Structures are given as structure tokens and as C-alpha cells.
């Protein structure tokens, strides 16, 4: 039986889709059978980030409405044979999603995969609430800045009230993933520090992804950062986060200016 994981944040542009792709790929790299589902109907991006945009035939809406079978809509990754994508529809909007339809798709996927990772759209409306509706666990993607933290807090509140598990009186397991962490700016006090974020959200930390050009480059070439440059700092952070999701205990590495400086010197020498 799969674990259904929602990657969510409330605020847009914090790195939900990038993190979905990177965590999905990292889990698949570890040999798990993973499906990533794009819930951002009308504004789909996950297909681009995974480099599968030219192979989309059917999508989530088709499956929800019974027009296509799940097996017809799932796209297998060309590099990782245990990674699958269920794309969103670009021509429809979120109203095309129904709770019954989504429940049926998720139920079918549970029996076929180890992980079903739902990439939530921004906001707290229909798309976002249906993406989290059937989740067993949640990764709340947060940037170390006040607006993002407050939106994450709002989303955690919704995880506690609007999910099927919460309504049954159970607890949705949740994790904070801090992305776009800039050690230099944090040191100058231009960003919230990690402890403040965790104190406000009172939720365990899954990982800290440093701000890096590698992430943008990976998105542009349509390859998850854990695949295209597995030794880069963000890739290592995502790989560790994926191991923690799997239950491994991996020491947390807070990126520091010292390390960056060291890395730069080292990099120069190597070059």
C-alpha cells in the first residue's frame, strides 16, 4: 500500500513543484515505486520539470471523469523506471476536479505504488484542498520569510481540519521543508532563521534546501536536481530529506557561510 504524500505550501513560488520532482526522483532512485501527481489543473508545470511535457496524452481530469484509464494517463520517466507522472490538464480548471473522482484515482494508485506524491497548487481553494484531502503525510514547503511562514501555518491548520484523516480523528504526519535558504542573507539577518520558523510552525523539519542556481538549471533542462547533478548541495539536501521520509535517521545539515566559503575555495582549486 502506498503512502500518499502531499507537497503543499499555501504561498506560490516557494518550490512545491521542484520539491515534488526532486523528492519523487530521490525516492525512485532509492528503488521505491513512485507516482507524482500534478494537481495544478490549468497551470501544470510538473511535466516540464520532469521533462515529460512532450509525452502527455491523457491527464488527471480524464481519469477523474472516467474518459481514460489510470494506466493510459501515467507517464513513465525515461531515466528512472520506477518513477511515474500523472499530469494535470492544462485546458481545464480546478472545478473539473471532484472529490469522488479524486478519491477513486488515489485509491487505485495506492495499490500500485509505494509513494503517491501529490503536487498541490498554491492557494487554499479547491485544487489545494483536494490535493491534501486523502494524504497520509504532508511536506509543507516554506521559504524563510514571514509571508511564506504564515501561509504554511494556515496550510497546517487545514491539514488538521480538512483532510479525510483529520475528519476521522487521525493525525496527518507532516514535515517542514525549508527551501531557498540563503546562508549569507540569513547571517545578515535578512531572513528568518531556521529556529524561528520551526518555533512558529511547531512542526518537525524534514530538510533545508539551500538557494542554488543548480535548482533553476535543473528545472530548465527538465530533470530533477537529484538526477542531473546528484552531488550538488540542493540535490544532497533533497536526497537526505527523501531518506528521512523513508524513516532513516539522517543528521540535519544547516548550510552555513563557512561551508559555502570552503566549498568555493575548494571548487576553485579543483578547477
Amino acid at each position, binding site marked *: 500500500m502506498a503512502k500518499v504524500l502531499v507537497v503543499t505550501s499555501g504561498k506560490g513560488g516557494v518550490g512545491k513543484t521542484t520539491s515534488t520532482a526532486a523528492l519523487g526522483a530521490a525516492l525512485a532512485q532509492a528503488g521505491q515505486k513512485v507516482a507524482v501527481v500534478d494537481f495544478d489543473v490549468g497551470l501544470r508545470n510538473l511535466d516540464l520539470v520532469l521533462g515529460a511535457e512532450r509525452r502527455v496524452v491523457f491527464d488527471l481530469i480524464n481519469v477523474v471523469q472516467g474518459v481514460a484509464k489510470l494506466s493510459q494517463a501515467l507517464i513513465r520517466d525515461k531515466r528512472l523506471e520506477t518513477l511515474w507522472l500523472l499530469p494535470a490538464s492544462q485546458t481545464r480548471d480546478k472545478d473539473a476536479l471532484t472529490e469522488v473522482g479524486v478519491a477513486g484515482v488515489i485509491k487505485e494508485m495506492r495499490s500500485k505504488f509505494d509513494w503517491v506524491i501529490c503536487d498541490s497548487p498554491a492557494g*487554499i481553494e479547491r485544487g489545494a484542498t483536494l490535493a491534501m484531502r486523502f494524504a497520509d503525510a504532508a511536506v509543507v514547503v516554506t521559504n524563510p520569510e*514571514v509571508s511564506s511562514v*504564515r*501561509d504554511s*501555518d*494556515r496550510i*497546517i*491548520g*487545514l491539514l*488538521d481540519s480538512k483532510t479525510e484523516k483529520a475528519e476521522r480523528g487521525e493525525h496527518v504526519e507532516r514535515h517542514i521543508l525549508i527551501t531557498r535558504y540563503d546562508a549569507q542573507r540569513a547571517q545578515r539577518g535578512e531572513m528568518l532563521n531556521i529556529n524561528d520558523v520551526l*518555533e*512558529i510552525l*511547531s512542526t518537525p523539519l524534514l530538510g533545508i534546501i539551500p538557494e542554488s542556481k543548480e535548482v533553476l538549471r535543473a528545472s530548465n533542462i527538465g530533470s530533477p536536481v537529484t538526477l542531473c547533478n546528484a552531488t550538488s548541495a540542493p540535490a544532497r539536501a533533497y536526497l537526505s530529506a527523501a531518506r528521512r521520509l523513508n524513516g532513516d535517521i539522517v543528521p540535519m545539515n544547516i548550510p552555513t557561510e563557512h561551508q559555502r566559503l570552503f566549498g568555493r575555495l575548494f571548487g576553485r582549486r579543483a578547477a
Partner: protein
Amino acid sequence: MTDAIAARPQEAMRLRARSFMAFVLTPVLPISHWFAQLDKWSSNSPDFFRGRPIIIDLAGSPLQVSEISQLITQLAARGIRVMALEGAEANQLDPLLPPLVQGGRTSVADQMFAGDGGANAGPRRKEPSSLLIESPIRSGQSVVFPDGDVTVLGSVSSGAEIVAGGSIHVYGALRGRAMAGSTGNTCARIFCNSNEAELLSIDGYYRTAEQIDASLRSRPTHCWLEDRVISIAALN
């Protein structure tokens, strides 16, 4: 010798309106079945209706005049005195029947009929109540508790709010809005372990974050109402 009686000054007739609480019984057809239920219920608390003003609500059961008077007689035999009728058409009533009343408002006394046992019978004093919340209150969440105090063990996030009829106690950081004494209680207070509030209000008088002295921020504080002004002081 004649007794002289001073003529009393002419007094105008005074009509005054007052409202009282009455119990409303709603007969359900068939009446015989309803009486059986009523008897079963009142066997648990025999004296419940003694001396209480009772109104019969006929809205759900269209009865003829004769049936209504029969109903009233049967109730009287059980010691239930009907003072008025509700929910019937005025023109279908007989002048001998109790008067028709309108515009009744539901009040809590109805709850006494919800239970089945005699244990509930008779008016009770309202229990003092308070609300304890053990989890943090997240942005966008709103806790409304007009019946008493609210105690939060965790923090109250920015964008969250607590509205309490009584006082508010936050053992974590208060970063959202706290509105105490919302039902007009000027004695309500707000206590928090770290004051980072967006707004503090007691009985409608408020202070926003901007109006709170910077020296009081991020400290354990206490907030009360003094001459319609919110006062805030550090605890200890």
C-alpha cells in the same frame, strides 16, 4: 357624622408589557400516541409541570376546536394548565379556548425537554465553563467561545484569532488577535507568555500592535481594561 372619603385622583389605566418564560408543548398526531409518550416522560419526573405556565404549539397538528378543547381537558387531568395557544389560525379558535400568542423566541429552557430522565428536570444553575486548547492555533483559525475563558497551551499564530466571553490565557506566544470579554465583560483579561499580538481587545476596546509599547513586546504580559482604556503590563 359622616365619613368623608377623599375622592381619589383619577388615574389613567396603565398597561405594561412584560415577557416571561413559558414551556411549549408540541402535540404530535396521533394524539393518543403523543399522550402515551408524555405520560411515560412525566412518570420520570412527576411534578415537572406543576404550576408551570404551558403553551401548546399547534403548528404541526391541525386540530378542530372540539379536539383542541378535548386536548386541554386531558392535559388538565394530568395537572398541566395551558395558558395560551401558539401556531393556530385566530379565526378557527373558540373564545372559550386560551388566547393565541405570537412571536415567541426560543430560549435555553427547551433543553430540559431534550433529555429523557428526571435527573434533568427542574431549572439548573448554569455551569461555569472554560475551553482548553492543547494544540497551537494556526493562521486563519478562529476560536469563538462566548461562554467563558479560553486557555491555549500552545501558541496563537499571526492571522489566527481567539474570541472569548471571559478571559484569555495563552501559555505560548500570542502572535494573532485576542478578543476577551466579547459579550460585554469588562473584567475579562488577557494573559500571554510572549506578547507579539496583532490586536488585543477587551469588551470591544482594543489596541493594535502599533499601539503597544515596544518594551512590552515578546515578554510575558497581562492586559486589562481600566476606564475604557486597554492597559498592558509585563508580568513579573
